[in-house]
């Protein structure tokens, strides 16, 4: 399990290649990348705040729970904080498993929990000012399916 919380940019392609290379026996690799998008136009940048210490613990607990629920060879989670621009990679998750069903399900579970249970807060900054992104009801509801 590799959990990284960092301010620095990362190369999702290189990370995925490195992750895949280490798991020749896994057979199935699923990855998801989250990118900063300009939801309503005019986004200058996004600021991501987090809770150092709790963030790493929460991500590790979520990844451990995924590993307990599905048969996984490995899990990778990278999540950035700080100032990000439109098009920047915010985060990625990757799962390695013997079978694709486990890899897909675990990746979706990681994303659902990471959105609402890892202590990150996004703030969108535009020319008109800054606004904290509100949690969407769908994101909280998504946890119900697990």
């Amino acid at each position, binding site marked *: 399990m590799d959990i990284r919380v960092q301010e620095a940019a990362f190369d999702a392609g290189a990370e995925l290649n490195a992750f895949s290379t280490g798991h020749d026996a896994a057979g199935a690799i699923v990855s998801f990348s*989250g990118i900063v998008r300009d939801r309503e136009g005019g986004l200058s940048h996004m600021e991501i*705040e987090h*809770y150092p*210490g*709790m963030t790493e*613990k*929460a991500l590790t607990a979520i990844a451990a729970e995924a590993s307990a629920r599905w048969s996984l060879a490995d899990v990778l989670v990278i*999540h950035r904080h700080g100032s990000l621009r439109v098009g920047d990679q*915010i*985060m990625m998750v990757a799962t390695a498993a013997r079978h694709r069903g486990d890899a897909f399900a675990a990746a979706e579970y990681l*994303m659902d929990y*990471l*959105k*609402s*249970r*890892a*202590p*990150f*807060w*996004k*703030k969108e900054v535009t020319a008109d000012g800054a606004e*904290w*992104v*509100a*949690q969407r009801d769908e*994101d*909280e509801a998504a946890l119900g399916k697990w």
Partner: protein
Amino acid sequence: MDVMYFAWVRERIGLPRERIDTQAATVMDLVTELRAREERYAVAFEDISALRVALDQELSEFDAPLAGVREVAFFPPMTGG
């Protein structure tokens, strides 16, 4: 204990963390104490249904006891991913 504030809670109160000496038995008792301090706290804690709380870096509830807790954090619902 150390009390921490994140995102708009931090902005409304005007500081990221502070040390508070309190006899509050539960999180809700602490919230009541903080609300009585100053207007900025009253505003930040006006609607606790819009807030989440973590005790020693684990998500918790407002009726949870504070005995033995060293770090309390208040913040809005999380928006990771």
